[in-house]
């Protein structure tokens, strides 16, 4: 019987598989950042061991960094300390760091792909759940905890149970104004925030095939929001041409050899999945979430479920969520006034996202009482945006283009949405307090966010297309 893409990669990375034991899986690339690594380095110190393969780990500072005046020392003492610890740890253990001020600095899941570090067929881990992003290249990539970061630093391996396999097919043609972010929000709203727990998902179908690399990353990024261990897409010409020529991508004879291997990376026709789901791209309209987990989403023109449409068991959690959001069951969101627009995060902060938004808002001006933050995913994205004059479009529109980092995606740094305010956000989580204590988040695509920036309200982007 044939093998799935996931099985091909996983099986070829097993160092040791014993009955009743999790597999010891070899890791090709390990990314680290300032928040989930200090305790792991401490663990190595306590055991008196080095980093086993320091050249296979790369570090950046992203979660805690300010997104204004990055040339100045970080003001907040504990954030500064954490970033300094990363510098100290990486220097001491011989790990390459793209820290503040480095031209490669940025959100960990943005820089890996753009530098050509992320490649098809790899196993990739990081102490961060959105490591699933890298799966867009046909890699097995997943988030891990700090004890596991320590495992990888110590042995370049991780102990893991093999997840089950799910295939999600999206077929047909997307409607105008509908982006890959809408596809993934739609899928999560259909299968819930735990619908893929225990699975590794392969996305397939022509609607996925037709997406650019960056759009594919947005989909894989949010796999974790339906509970999946990770998500991946078989590499193809789109993948290969994206990678070719990037800083750390293979070159010359190495490229040819790699390419020959990458072309074997697909699920065989007779491969068996534990579960298969199929969606029609034509059914998807621009999406928006209304609740406090990413499964609580709907088409932008639809209504929040009424109480009697929610299963009785789930009502208490549903009510709690809507109380937090200060929204009524059964009501519509279209036209709802918003206070903040955040375009950024590892889901939607790449150059294509910024280009789309710039195209849409060119020559227009934001609504007066809305604060609009655009936070590029990396120094390279920022530089590219400036080179293309996108910064000027944003300035004319009254949008603030900030410096790279996680920013208001998790409000660990200085960028927070104030209590009680509504933010349309292109990030991936609408959890209570995620964007700041008592902040209220609507997740949406960069286009839907841009439309809201112009009107100051939840808007159907298709109206102005």
């Amino acid at each position, binding site marked *: 019987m044939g093998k799935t893409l996931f099985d091909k990669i996983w099986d070829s990375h097993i*160092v*040791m598989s014993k009955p*009743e*034991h999790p597999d*010891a899986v*070899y890791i090709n*690339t390990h990314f680290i950042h300032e*928040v*989930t690594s*200090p*305790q792991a380095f401490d663990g190595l110190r306590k055991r008196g*061991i080095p980093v*086993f393969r320091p050249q296979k780990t790369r570090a950046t500072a992203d*979660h*805690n960094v300010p997104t204004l005046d990055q040339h100045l020392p970080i003001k907040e003492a*504990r954030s500064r*300390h954490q970033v300094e*610890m990363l510098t100290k740890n990486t220097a001491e253990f011989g790990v390459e760091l793209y820290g503040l001020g480095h031209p490669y600095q940025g959100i960990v899941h943005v820089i890996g792909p753009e530098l050509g570090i992320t490649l098809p*067929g790899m196993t990739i881990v990081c*102490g*961060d*759940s959105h490591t699933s992003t890298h799966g867009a290249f046909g890699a097995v990539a997943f988030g*891990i*905890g*700090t*004890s*596991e970061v320590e*495992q990888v630093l*110590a*042995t370049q*391996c*991780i*102990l*893991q149970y093999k*997840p089950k396999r799910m295939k999600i097919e999206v077929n047909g043609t997307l409607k105008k104004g509908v982006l890959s972010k809408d596809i993934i929000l739609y899928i999560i709203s259909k299968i819930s*925030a*735990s619908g893929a*727990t*225990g699975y590794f998902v392969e996305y397939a179908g022509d609607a996925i095939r037709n997406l650019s690399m960056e759009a594919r990353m947005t989909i894989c990024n949010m796999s*974790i929001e339906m509970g999946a*261990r990770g998500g991946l897409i078989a590499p193809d010409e789109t993948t290969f041409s994206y990678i070719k020529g990037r800083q750390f991508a293979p070159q010359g004879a190495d490229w040819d*050899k*790699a390419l020959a*291997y990458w072309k074997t990376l697909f699920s065989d026709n007779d491969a068996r999945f534990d579960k298969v789901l199929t969606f029609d791209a034509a059914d998807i309209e621009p999406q928006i979430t209304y609740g406090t*987990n990413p*499964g609580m989403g709907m088409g932008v023109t639809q209504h929040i479920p009424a109480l009697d449409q929610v299963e009785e068991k*789930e009502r*208490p*959690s549903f009510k*709690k969520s809507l109380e937090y959001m200060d929204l009524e069951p059964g009501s519509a969101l279209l036209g709802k006034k918003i206070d903040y627009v955040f375009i950024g995060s590892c889901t939607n902060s790449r150059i294509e996202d910024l280009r789309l938004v710039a195209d849409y808002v060119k020559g227009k001006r934001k609504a007066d009482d809305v604060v609009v933050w655009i936070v590029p995913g990396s120094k390279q994205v920022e530089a590219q945006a400036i080179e293309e004059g996108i910064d000027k479009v944003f300035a004319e529109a009254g949008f603030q283009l900030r410096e790279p980092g996680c920013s208001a995606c*998790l*409000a*660990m740094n200085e960028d927070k949405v104030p*209590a009680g305010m509504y933010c349309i956000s292109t990030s991936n*989580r609408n*959890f*209570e*307090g*995620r964007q700041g*204590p008592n902040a209220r988040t609507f997740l949406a695509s960069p286009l839907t966010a841009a439309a809201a920036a112009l009107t100051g309200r939840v808007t159907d982007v298709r109206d102005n297309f």
Partner: protein
Amino acid sequence: MSKIFQHLVSAAVPVPIENIDTDQIIPARFLKATTREGFGENLFRDWRFDANNQPKADFALNNPLYSGKILVAGKNFGCGSSREHAAWAIADYGFKVVVSSFFADIFKNNALNNFILPVQVSETFLDQVFKAIEADPKAEIEVDLENQFIRIVATGEQENFDINAYKKTCLRNGYDDIDYLLSLRQDIEKYEGTRAFNF
């Protein structure tokens, strides 16, 4: 943090909310520490305390009726961020067991790596546990790792739970994954020699 788990009889603290994500268990602004200690103080911070840092009386952790080393929560516990700080906060607060009808994958790994036992039960049994605590806030729950069962002491209702044999051994003896991986050092080097690509 004790590195061993075998058997426990304790009252339990009920948090009957579904989809509790790790941002609720420990909000991001408390992740700036560079050690593993002290996170218990901020466990469920924004549900436990209001904006003026006053305890919210209606939250279970602030209710003096409830106590014990077992946390009981609604389905899909620990979803969201991979932050192990969530497991550290739960352990630091003093919980040894979390009971739910469904756990997120990364949280489950993180919990086990910190010698917290995630006990996954059926929805029916979870309801029974919540009801038992409602009837008597001091209701005792017994958790036995050797025989893999959880029991409501007062009613005798019980259910078996799954745990992987390897993880069971780790918990019962205080072994961790790094000890095992380090013992594979030669196999890892041998594996590296077989790889066609240097990535």
